[in-house]
């Protein structure tokens, strides 16, 4: 099955599931999810100017007064989805005050261990989870610690948006975030949510977290750890049986110039016409993966 033909059928399915507000929910509810909306906007925006415009309109309308975005419509607290929204605005070529405010929010937001008291606690009294609290990134929501996926998306968003004009503050947060990712890697490479060793026992990596962390590190020096993680992801990708994880594998391996043709064919076969994939974020990620190489990669970082 030609993957691009498959993608166009699925694009129509995803398009039909859009909400009148311009957003998408994860499933069939009326409550738009920022994650589903951003991924759908990226998947459909490259082909449809109208869809790009409506996604940008939705994002601008739902931005909070502090510059962040909530995880879903109706919530008033900014979340990690701010990074995804900034990526979306950048890729859809919408450079405006909304993006500047989002960058400001990202630069100010930090995991709870960014505070000296918690850093001290994790260094002295609470050593059950092995990590270096001096290296912090971004939380899922304010008031919690740094985790791999929000940190990775925040790094990508800042790298993309500041590629032509990077301030010292941005550079500093990128470096700190990269250091945090490298510190939280699993013992044999790869990443999970952010706990590599708990009570002295190494935990195993997850496919999607590894793929997303590698996207954030794509322009960093190819260290032995990054190489080991890439090798782990390549090996795992052969046996991944879930649409979402396989799609993230493709998106990540592609930017490392690894062959993804076989994986795309397998993904297209798993998807069929997309009807059975009820999760709109998954469907959108699958479209992005199938169209890898045919459109701007939404998470590619220019060097």
């Amino acid at each position, binding site marked *: 099955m030609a993957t691009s033909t498959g993608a166009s059928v699925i694009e129509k399915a995803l398009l039909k599931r859009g909400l009148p507000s311009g957003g998408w929910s994860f499933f069939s509810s009326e409550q738009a999810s920022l994650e589903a909306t951003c991924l759908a906007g990226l998947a459909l925006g490259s082909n449809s100017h109208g869809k790009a415009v409506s996604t940008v309109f939705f994002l601008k309308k739902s931005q909070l007064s502090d510059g962040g975005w909530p995880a879903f419509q109706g919530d008033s607290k900014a979340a990690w989805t701010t990074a995804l929204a900034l990526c979306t605005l950048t890729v859809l070529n919408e450079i405006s005050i909304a993006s500047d405010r989002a960058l400001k929010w990202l630069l100010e937001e930090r995991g709870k261990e960014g505070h000296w008291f918690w850093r001290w606690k994790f260094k002295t009294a609470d050593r059950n989870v092995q990590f270096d609290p001096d290296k912090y990134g971004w*939380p899922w929501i304010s008031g919690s610690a740094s985790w791999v996926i929000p940190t990775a998306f925040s790094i990508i968003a800042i790298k993309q948006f500041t590629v032509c004009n990077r301030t010292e503050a941005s550079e500093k947060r990128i470096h700190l975030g990269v250091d945090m990712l490298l510190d939280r890697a699993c013992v044999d490479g790869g990443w999970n949510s952010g706990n590599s060793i708990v009570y002295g*026992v190494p935990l195993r990596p997850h*496919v999607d977290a590894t793929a997303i962390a590698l996207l954030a590190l794509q322009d960093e020096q190819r260290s032995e750890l990054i190489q080991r993680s890439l090798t782990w992801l390549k090996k795992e990708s052969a046996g991944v049986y879930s649409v979402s994880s396989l799609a993230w594998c493709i998106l990540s391996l592609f930017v490392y110039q690894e062959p993804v043709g076989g994986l795309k064919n397998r993904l297209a076969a798993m998807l069929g016409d997309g009807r059975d994939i009820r999760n709109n974020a998954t469907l959108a990620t699958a479209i992005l993966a199938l169209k890898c190489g045919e459109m701007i990669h939404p998470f590619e970082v220019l060097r």
Partner: protein
Amino acid sequence: MKLDRRRFLGSSVGVAAAVRVAAEWVWPKHTVWYRRPRSAVAVLSAAEYSERIEALLLDGLRLFRLQVLGRSVLLKPNLVEDLPGPVNTNSTLIGAAARCFLRLGAERVVIGEGPGHQRDTELVVQAAGLKPHLAEQQIEFVDLNRDELRKVRLKANYSGLGALWLPRAVLESDFVVSMPKVKTHHWAGVTLSLKNMFGIVPGMKYGWPKNVLHWSGIHESILDICATVPIHFVIADGITAMEGNGPLQGNARQLGKIVLADDPVAADATCARLMGFDPQQVRHLSEGCHFLGNLREDRIRMLAEGVGTSMHPFSVLPEFDYLHAARI
């Protein structure tokens, strides 16, 4: 009257205690009381996960005379990771429970879970072997990490969270069944029916893991969640349980039991006793027994079997040795 140091200290402690009692009276920690005079528990023996479980479970459920006719039932299993070993509630038991509730007259059975570590729910559902059971009519799976959310004011105030966004599928169900895997837990000591309710807290809002609950106190968050979303029934999977460094890295432990209960505290206290633990040592049980359910053995009516006394206690991390204290 002359106030010496001893009297001063004694008076201060007395005043502090009085203030605390008064404060709890003025600002109670919880606004709900689910505890009844007596609770019912049935401990069923099952050596393995086989087709025979369904008949066993149906017989066990009938002992409770459950009122589920025409109601919407939510089964909340413990599906955490796509890992081998006894990490997740067994799918044979989940499927059997779903069919049993339909046979008992439930209008609809929804299996809902929001895995706390693995973001790819499809991966967990497939690895847990749940897909074949979902092919049946009237049994639907809801990803609680990504369901529509509503903000709910918490009915207890141990964590200080005040309110949580919770999934519609949970809030709209008439009858919530917690289906934990019987496991030790490296933060909470044990993970049973009450701790299992962490899975209703949506990752879409609170992340993977739901770290805000850890920062607010695991036991405190458990109490607040379970006060807000009452558990109507428990089916605990203790056929193959987990001991040691649970909930992910522990060792399999063949317990050969399914615990049914109409009270989550009674269920968890019974599971803890089966594990060789003193339930009073589990903080969310010792506090939860004041309003969520019954912990004391004399308030638990055994409908089938009981808790034996000759079993070898579950192993725990050294930090949790205190769980092995003498039983009350």
